[in-house]
């Protein structure tokens, strides 16, 4: 790590405006860092040439005084965002060679804001996973190592993005969060990850996994950086029917407001029997920090919490089974020749999709099928209403909710792989907010007894990311999380 790769977005913004550095300099430093950290396998497609070109254009704008919100900032782009002219794979064999002739709205907005794309980040295939161990392009390693230098997972699905930011090989990165895919890897890698309100960021051009849950969001080293980046990513998109025609506030402006007088909900259902002791202890510490800063703690109940995971694992696979039907070898990506059309479909999809994706497509197909729709999909959507209602009821008496982000710190690759359900349980604290469409952020708050990062999650009601950022800032200030030493 160099001085330049230790900068946050806010610091870089400052130095760039003072002409103490340049976009090209920053970019070159990161390109070198990426090269040096190949071992992490955080990138599927590094794009150094594109990056340098954009950096040069960025410097020109800086010279003219036309700096955008993220001018000159080198970022990683999760390989789920379609980027024009740059290979986009969704970490899947089935999208071999796919070079989109269009750019996703969010990546375009970041480009228009002046950011520099360093490359496409690795992820769990089609965003399905909590460990980044299902990518066609190989596992991503967490830059934090376990006892005795053991390799750990970075979390998922945005594992490559999280690892890169934590390792200082990207100043920030985009992720997507469907059931926790930004927040959980952020917690595992000791960085900040934000899932905004559903509809805050456009989904146009993002390879769809579960349409009613997917949301793009920033992954950064500081809360301020996340606020800056989220502003650049957000906004109504008429090309996305689920995008909200809602004003985007200046999130950065809310950061210093503190938490005095805010009521913070502590849901009892998030402390099951046998909760990891380190996680529980950190949660208690977090509560104390907020209390010390003038917030009021309120015990609340979110009674349907235990049903969130099974609800999610019906709704998400169902939508995915339909969204992934287009990957059939006809118009793009992998094609495996078969005798007939159906054989071509079946062989292509069998060869192109990994095991976890296939499992979820099959579950999704099953829960939508004749005779099972009512008992599974319809039932799940009803339970989802109840989960949402739990939150809206709670927000009558509190302004924000504090929970742990993940039930454990990062685990070793290979653990939990025999049992899909064990892997799903990683999302137990993040999934409810996804189902309700409310914003959630993870802030690195402390270390486990093995010295691994642990995150705390802040949830607020829809469209209230401002309160969320306020609480995050207070936690960050109190935690003084060290990050990976340079």
């Amino acid at each position: 790590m160099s001085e330049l790769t230790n900068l946050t977005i806010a610091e870089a913004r400052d130095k760039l405006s003072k002409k103490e550095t340049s976009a090209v300099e920053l970019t070159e430093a990161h390109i070198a860092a990426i090269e040096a950290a190949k071992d992490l396998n955080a990138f599927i497609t590094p794009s150094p040439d594109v990056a340098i070109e954009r950096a040069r254009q960025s410097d020109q704008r800086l010279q003219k005084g036309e700096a955008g919100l993220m001018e000159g900032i080198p970022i990683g782009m999760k390989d789920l965002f379609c980027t024009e002219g740059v290979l986009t794979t969704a970490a899947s064999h089935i999208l071999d060679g796919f070079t989109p002739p269009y750019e996703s709205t969010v990546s375009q907005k970041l480009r228009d804001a002046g950011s520099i794309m360093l490359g496409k980040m690795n992820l769990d295939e089609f965003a399905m996973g909590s460990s980044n161990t299902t990518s066609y392009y190989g596992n991503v390693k967490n830059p934090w190592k376990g006892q005795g230098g053991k390799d750990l997972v970075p979390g998922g699905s945005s594992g490559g993005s999280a690892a890169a930011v934590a390792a200082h090989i990207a100043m920030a990165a985009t992720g997507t969060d469907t059931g926790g895919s930004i927040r959980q890897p952020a917690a595992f890698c000791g960085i900040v990850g934000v899932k905004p309100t559903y509809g805050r960021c456009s989904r146009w051009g993002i390879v769809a996994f579960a349409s009613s849950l997917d949301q793009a969001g920033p992954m950064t080293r500081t809360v301020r950086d996340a606020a800056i980046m989220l502003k650049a990513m957000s906004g109504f998109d008429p090309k996305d029917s689920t995008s909200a025609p809602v004003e985007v506030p200046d999130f950065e402006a809310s950061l210093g407001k503190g938490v005095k007088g805010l009521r913070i909900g502590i849901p009892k259902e998030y402390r099951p029997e046998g909760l990891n002791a380190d996680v529980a202890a950190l949660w208690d510490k977090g509560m104390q920090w907020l209390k010390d800063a003038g917030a009021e703690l309120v015990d609340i109940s979110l009674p349907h919490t235990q049903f969130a995971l099974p609800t999610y694992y019906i709704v998400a696979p169902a939508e995915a089974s339909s969204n992934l039907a287009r990957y059939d070898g006809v118009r793009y990506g992998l094609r495996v020749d078969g005798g007939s059309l159906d054989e071509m479909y079946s062989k292509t999809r069998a060869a192109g999709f990994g095991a976890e994706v296939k499992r979820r497509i099959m579950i999704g197909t099953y829960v939508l099928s004749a005779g099972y729709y009512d008992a599974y999909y319809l039932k799940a959507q009803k339970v989802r209403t109840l989960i949402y209602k739990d939150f809206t009821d709670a927000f009558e008496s509190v302004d924000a909710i504090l929970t742990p982000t993940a039930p454990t710190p990062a685990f070793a690759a290979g653990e939990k792989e025999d049992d899909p359900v064990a892997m799903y349980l990683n999302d137990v604290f993040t999934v409810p907010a996804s189902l309700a469409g409310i914003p959630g952020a993870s802030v690195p708050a402390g270390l486990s007894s093995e010295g691994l990062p642990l995150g705390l999650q802040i949830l607020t009601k829809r469209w209230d990311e401002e309160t969320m950022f306020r609480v995050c800032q207070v936690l960050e200030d109190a935690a003084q999380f060290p990050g990976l030493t340079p």
Partner: protein
Amino acid sequence: MSLDKATVRKIATLARIDVPDADLEHLSKELSHILGWIEQLSEVDTDNVAPMSGGTDLKLNWRKDEVTDGGQPEKVLANAPDPQDDFFTVPKVVE
């Protein structure tokens, strides 16, 4: 809910994913396990509860009837595995 191999084969066909016979046993066990875990939802009382429609409570955005797209067959076909004269091609389908 236990899925037998025949059901798994049917689902695989609906989903157009070739599952070799050798894998059917293992896959049906995995899927049965996942479905068994999901079953707990039946405990929840959802009488008189409306299903959530999508992830948001906004109104559907309407678009004006104007031509704003199309006219770029090269781009549409740019990633096609076997394009011929501006057409996509697939193995012959007999109707």
